[in-house]
Every structure is written in C-alpha cells, then in structure tokens.
C-alpha cells in the first residue's frame, strides 16, 4: 500500500502547485523516500504498539477535493469562539478558504495566513523553519506530511511584538471528504520576545463520515517568547486522526500546550518539545474524553537538553463505553541538563467496566542534580467523594456528573486565555451530559 503514496508523489511532482519554493523540493523527496523505505509503522514497533493503525494503512485514501464553496459561514458558527476580532483561518477539507476566513485584528506586523500563499513569496522565514524541525525519519506519518506539504496555517510573530488576539486555525471536514486524506501542515514562528496564542481545531460538519486527517504543526519559540497553543480535536467518531506537534524552544521561552481530544475512531497525537536553551519553561496539559469504541492515543516527549529548565505535564482522561486510551510520556534529561525540574502526571477516570487505559510514563535521566517525578493513575470515581456530595443533598447522578466534571475541569482550568478556557469548559459539559 505504501507504494501508492510514492506513485501519487511522482504524479504530482512537476505539476503547478504552490511549491515554487525550490528549497522545499529536496526535503519532500527525502520525505517520500523515507516513507517508501519504512512504510506505515508495524504492530511490533514500540512507538505504535497500542495504536491500531491498520485501518489507515490498508485503505486507499483519495485526495480531498477541498470544495470551499460547499460550506456556508453560518455552519461554522458553533466552532468559532464568538470573537469576531480574532484571526480565524478556515480550511475546508484541507483547502484554504479566504471567504470563510476572518483576518481579524492583527495589531502588529504579525502574519497569519495560508501556507501555500506564503510559499509564493517567502522572505526566508519558511525556508529556515518549514520542514526543518519535525524529523521525517522519526515518524512515517510526518514523512508523508512533508512529502505532501500543500496547505496549512502559517503564523509569524516578529521580534518583541504581542499578538494580542489569538489566531485560530480551523480545519473543517465535510461530508464530501468521505474516504479522503488531508495533510494539514502548520508553521508557527514566534520570534524573540514575542507573544502569541494559537488555537488549532479539527472539526467535522458530517458526523459519521470516515476520513483521515494527517496533521503536522511545527512551532519555533524564539528566546524569551511566550506561546499558548491549544489543540482541539473534535473529528467525526468514524474518522482517523494522526497529528504531530513539534516545538523547538530557545532560551527563556515559555510554551504552554493544551491538547483536547474527543473525536475520532482512532486519534493519535504526538507532542514533542525540545528545550534548546537555559531557563525554558514547558507546560503540557491534555484532556481526552472518549466513548463507544474510540481509541485516543497521546505520545509526548520533552527533551531537556540544557540546564535550569522546567517542564510540567498533566494529561487526564475520562473514558466511557468500550473506549481505550493510550498515554506515553517521555522525559529525556541530558547529562548537561543539571537542575532540571520535570513533573509528569497522567490520570484516568473510567466510567465503565469495558473502558481500558495503557499508560506509560518514562523518564530517562542522565544528569544527577535534577528533580524529576512522574505518576499515573487509573481508577473510578471515589466512593467517599460521591458520598460527600450526596450527603450535601446532591442526587447520585448529579454527584457523579459533578465529580467527573471536576476531574476534567482541574486541567482545563490551566488554560490561560479565558475565552478558550470557557469554550473547553463548554465542550466538557456538553460531552459529559450526553454520556
């Protein structure tokens, strides 16, 4: 099946797409060669052991047509945050729609727009960053993404500027996308001293449709920059979602991520942060809410390559039905990364007997003067807490809902930007009430 991707790549090269950027071609060629060599991950590959990707590997996915005129602005209302002054970039089945997008109020020299357009007149930023950070040899899906780079969001925040309003990259899949694949590719470059909030959403207008999203986002956090990056995955519950976020952090930078996963038949997200300088802070928060037969898989990796950095990670999951969650969190501390302060937590709440979690926190520490801890729990609602709530007059079902909500809210409350926090809160409430 992998050979098909090679054929498609060959058929497409030389045609007039966005890739006038000559520097990109060799990167894409290496990527497709890499994929052709490795193919999709096999079941005994440790990185993919618990992730049933066979339905992705064995199906012949068409390229999505990306008919942007098929969607009316009103259909997007439920997915916006009700802030007309935010910059929203809308992609329909992978294609950028200028009409549906909202330039918002970009108060600075900052840029936020379509990647394919940016590639037409690159002033060097894309060449320095695009496909330079997320390694293609580490992950066959990233190799495919790089080979098929076509469209996505590009955000650039120049030195010492504050993007006061968030940029929302909204990926919408319609009923026309049945049995298709898209490769959304985002690049976020936040220069030294700059500040930005980025939201990445993956939603569907056609629940029940089967399609595959293969998304890759590269983030470069310059020295002393501040970034909040929220990822909301609400794909169709029959869809496949494979995502990778790769973050490079320079000294004194602060990067905080919130990753919400509630859609997909199978949804996998890899989040990797590389700490390249001293005094870097990395916060990774995550919440997954699963039901039915969903499988949600989060793999995170934090590379403490330099001394005096802090990373703090909390992923929580609420599982119902026969759903399954996978959590694998790695923290690597290099010998020179003394005074590293790293804490990692994964907590899971099972609402049904058939739900299952595979959790594996991993610390690999090669420095001796560090403070690193990790912990994982899988359990049910605490009987004593339930009794406590009931003893105050709350009916059993209300008490259960309240405590389940509280479990999730403990992590959503970490989102810095209030409207985003409220949106996540609403998503959690809506989902829990429907269980």
């Amino acid at each position, binding site marked *: 099946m992998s050979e098909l991707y090679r054929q498609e790549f060959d058929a497409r090269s030389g045609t007039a797409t966005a890739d006038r950027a000559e520097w990109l071609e060799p990167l894409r060629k290496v990527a497709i060669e890499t994929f052709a060599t490795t193919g999709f991950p096999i079941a005994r590959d440790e990185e993919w052991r618990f992730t049933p990707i066979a339905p992705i590997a064995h199906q012949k996915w068409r390229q999505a047509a990306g008919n942007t005129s098929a969607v009316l602005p009103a259909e997007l209302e439920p997915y916006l945050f009700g802030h007309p002054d935010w910059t929203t970039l809308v992609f329909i089945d992978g294609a950028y729609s200028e009409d549906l997008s909202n330039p918002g109020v970009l108060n600075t020299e900052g840029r936020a727009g379509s990647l394919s357009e940016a590639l037409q007149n690159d002033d060097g930023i894309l060449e320095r960053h695009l496909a330079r950070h997320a390694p293609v040899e580490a992950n066959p899906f990233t190799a495919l993404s790089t080979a098929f780079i076509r469209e996505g969001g590009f955000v650039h925040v120049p030195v010492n500027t504050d993007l006061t309003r968030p940029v929302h990259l909204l990926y919408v899949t319609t009923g026309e996308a049945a049995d298709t694949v898209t490769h959304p590719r985002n690049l976020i470059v936040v220069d030294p001293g700059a500040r930005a909030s980025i939201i990445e959403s993956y939603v569907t207008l056609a629940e029940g449709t089967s399609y595959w999203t293969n998304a890759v986002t590269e983030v470069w956090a310059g020295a002393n920059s501040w970034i909040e990056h929220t990822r909301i995955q609400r794909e169709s519950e029959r869809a496949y979602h494979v995502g990778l976020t790769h973050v490079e952090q320079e000294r004194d930078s602060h990067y905080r991520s919130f990753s919400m996963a509630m859609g997909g038949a199978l949804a996998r997200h890899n989040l990797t942060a590389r700490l390249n300088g001293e005094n870097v802070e990395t916060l990774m928060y995550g919440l997954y809410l699963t039901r039915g037969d969903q499988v949600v898989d989060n793999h995170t990796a934090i590379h403490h390559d330099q001394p005096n950095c802090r990373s703090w990670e909390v992923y929580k999951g609420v599982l119902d039905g026969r759903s399954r969650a996978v959590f694998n969190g790695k923290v690597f501390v290099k010998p020179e990364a003394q005074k590293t302060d790293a804490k990692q937590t994964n907590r899971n709440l099972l609402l049904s007997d058939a739900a299952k979690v595979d959790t594996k926190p991993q610390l690999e520490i090669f420095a001796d003067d560090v403070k690193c801890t990790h912990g994982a729990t899988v359990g049910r609602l605490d009987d004593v807490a339930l*009794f406590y709530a*009931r*003893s*105050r007059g*709350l009916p059993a079902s209300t008490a259960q809902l*309240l405590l389940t909500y509280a479990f999730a809210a403990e992590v959503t409350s970490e989102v810095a930007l209030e409207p985003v926090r409220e949106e996540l809160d609403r998503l959690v409430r809506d989902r829990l009430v429907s269980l």
Partner: protein
Amino acid sequence: MLEIRGLRASAGDKEILKGIDLTVNAGEVHAVMGPNGSGKSTLAQVLAGHPAYTVTAGHVLYDGNDLLDMDPEVRAQAGVFLAFQYPVEIPGISNAYFLRAAYNEIRKSKGLEEVDSMDFLDLLEEKLRLVEWGPEIMSRAVNSGFSGGEKKRNEILQMAILDPKLAILDETDSGLDIDALRIVAGGVNALRRPDNVTIVVTHYQRLLNYIVPDQVHVLSGGRIVKSGDKGLALELEAKGYEWLEEVGAAS
C-alpha cells in the same frame, strides 16, 4: 426527634455498632465520646448513610420517618447534615459552585425556587462572618489545598448555609488550635435552635468547654456504656477512657 433503637452496623465482616439505643429531643445537644475504635465515627456516618457500612439490625426514626430507608441525599434534603471528620477535597469545583448546587438541591426538594449566584452571595456574606472568613474562600476549589483547620471551618460554613435540623459533627474539633476551635464552636452555638438537634462526636472533653451538651454518652466496643450530663465529660477527662472500658467489660 431522633430515636435510635438496637442499631447494629458492620463494615465488611466486622461488626462495629453492637446495639445502640439513643433518643435526642428537639432543642438538645448530645455529645458522643469514646476511645478510638469505639464506633463513635461509625455511628455518625451510619446516620448520614455512608455506603461503607451495612446496617444489620435496629431502626432509626428521624422526625417520625425511617431514616435508614432514605438515600444519603434524601436525608440531606430532610435536614440531616454530617460534618466530616476528613472533609473531601474536590479540585476543579469552586467552593461557591459546590455550595450553591447543594443549597439549590435542598430548596428544590422543598418545592422552592433555586437561587441565582447573586442572591446566593448575599446569603453567603452573613454565613461567612460566622466562621470569620472573607469571600476569597469561595473561589477556591472545595477543600483543595485547605489546611486541616480550614477544612473544618468549611464544614461549619456548609452547615450554616444548609441549615440542618439534625447536625452531626464527627470529630470536628480534632487537630484544631484554640482559635479554630473557638470559631467552629461559635458556629455550632449560633445554629442551635429549639427545633433542631446537634450530635457532637468527639474524643476530647475540650470541645465541651465551648459547646455545652445536654447529655453525654460514652461509647465503648460499639455500645453506649454510660450516659450522663456534662459532668460525665469532666469525669472522663479526669479518669481516662480505661475506667469506662472496665465498666463496659463488666456490663
């Protein structure tokens, strides 16, 4: 108001309450004392409906109704309140949200309209004064990161807002410094009325310097081995629980 007859209860295979008889009339405060493991906390928790215990014999009449037949939330709606020995932390939910949800459930059960957050704030203000707290405490998550004393004060605050007819305090005084003890006792005394009853479960006589009981009962080995007026507490303080354990063994 509360009539307990021949109450036996177990946790798993272990029988803890071995036949309790106790009558509390409206307007009274009763203290239940006893050494560790005597069953005094179990009695408090069984009255509130804790699922860890199984009642194996006896009955409890509360306001003429069969208390043991009621779910914990129904007991709460009927005016039963247990101040927990170890109040539960609920990170993720604010104290204000939790308390208002509880308050509204109790109102709903009485056919009253729910109050919105503004009206609730007015009510809160008065009750907060009772425990000498400012409004900041309400935006903190329920008991989360609270000190031991703060947790106990929070129980008293909840009690003040929910305004119970049967208040049971399970070792609310344990581990409190004198200031916190004064605040907790002040809260309890302020809520004392001719139409409600309070059962104070305590290990130490000290609390009874602040809350004066009408009757004192001593539990040992799952039975009430002695009852008396407040003088009994002082006698216990002087002679120690060993004295009564001997009484219990002899009876």
